[in-house]
């Protein structure tokens, strides 16, 4: 249980996927201009991460013990297909849900956070529950970073950021400051 808590806290704060591992930067920098969208993208990503954790656990346990060299390619194929399948299903079954979350799914599949989660979880030998906790923490951490970033960007958007700085350079620098602030969580719950 302690271990699960640490996995969660670590993925959420200490080793935040975006701010410490640089995973999922494309949506983090690209889609974080609106709070509403960021939050929904965060939720959708968390959902895909959990699916990923399930898929990769399944693959690790039943397929890759026989063929470890197929790890990467099978992760990619399985995760992409599963997400695509879910996307179609949501679109069919609940157009409302699709409008709010589903439209992000294709974007998320090519997000390195997804593959990163699968690979990290395998490298660390996480079991099913550990993997799910990891996915939940990573997703929550991603959402947290997205929402904070979007809040700041919306504020800066109507502010007086110099034209030269505006855009990706500015986003990167504020991510840097945010990442610096998250360093305060280093060592959380590991020292006592």
């Amino acid at each position: 249980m302690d271990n699960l808590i640490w996995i969660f806290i670590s993925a959420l704060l200490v080793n935040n996927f975006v701010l410490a591992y640089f995973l999922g930067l494309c949506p983090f920098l690209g889609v974080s201009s609106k709070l509403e969208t960021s939050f929904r993208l965060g939720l959708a990503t968390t959902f895909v991460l959990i699916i990923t954790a399930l898929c990769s656990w399944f693959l690790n346990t039943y397929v890759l013990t026989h063929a470890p060299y197929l790890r990467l390619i099978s992760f990619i194929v399985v995760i992409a297909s599963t997400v695509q399948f879910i996307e179609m299903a949501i679109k069919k079954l609940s157009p409302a849900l699709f409008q709010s979350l589903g439209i992000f799914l294709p974007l998320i599949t090519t997000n390195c956070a997804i593959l990163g989660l699968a690979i990290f979880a395998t490298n660390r030998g996480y079991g099913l529950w550990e993997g799910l906790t990891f996915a939940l923490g990573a997703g929550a951490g991603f959402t947290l970073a997205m929402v904070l970033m979007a809040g700041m960007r919306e504020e800066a958007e109507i502010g007086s950021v110099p034209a030269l700085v505006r855009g990706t350079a500015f986003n990167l620098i504020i991510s840097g400051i945010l990442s610096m602030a998250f360093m305060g969580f280093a060592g959380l719950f590991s020292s006592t």
Partner: protein
Amino acid sequence: MSSGLPIMEKEPSSTTLVAALAIAGFLSGIIIIGVYLATFDTIAENKARELREAVFRVLPNVTRMQKLRYDGSELVVLPDNAKDDEETIYGGYNDAGEFVGYAIVNAGPGFQDTVRVIYGYRPAERKVVGMWILESRETPGLGDKIYKDAAFVANFDNLGVDPEIVAVKKGTKSRANEIDAITGATISSKAVVRIMNEAHKKWDARLPVTAPALQQAAE
């Protein structure tokens, strides 16, 4: 933005799609297995060497080793190419094939991320005789001293484990079970100690004073 394509294209049949995917999969499978087999030996060799180096580093005078696994009641010898798991440790032997000590691997949270530690333990003396960090992302310049600072590593060359290892402020080390923590990186130092204590607690009762005899012939 795929303009230039006719708007109403004839839909290919599902079989074509499935076949395309299957063929792509098949071909990629062949390529991958080819590369895998071609590099397999080198990679296995690299891994084994790395492990050997680590074991030899934490157990002085050791030149030969073998994998051991606790199967619930006793240690059994595993072949070198067996998969490692949490119940695996390594036995270290000298030139003459005599048992020197165990090398134990454990991991736990450090300052930043997981730290993986290997340490050598001699059950006869109840002492740690060496420690090495296999993996860490500790802060450069501070936390990374747990393996970059020779003085810190030397703390573990002759270290008592009873009642448990304790990290104390630098310069105040006075007992056999104490180590000098790194100034400014107390957390990382303590993390190493904690990881080792945890491992020791788990293995202490399981380890016989003498390990199973070396099974493989000297290379």
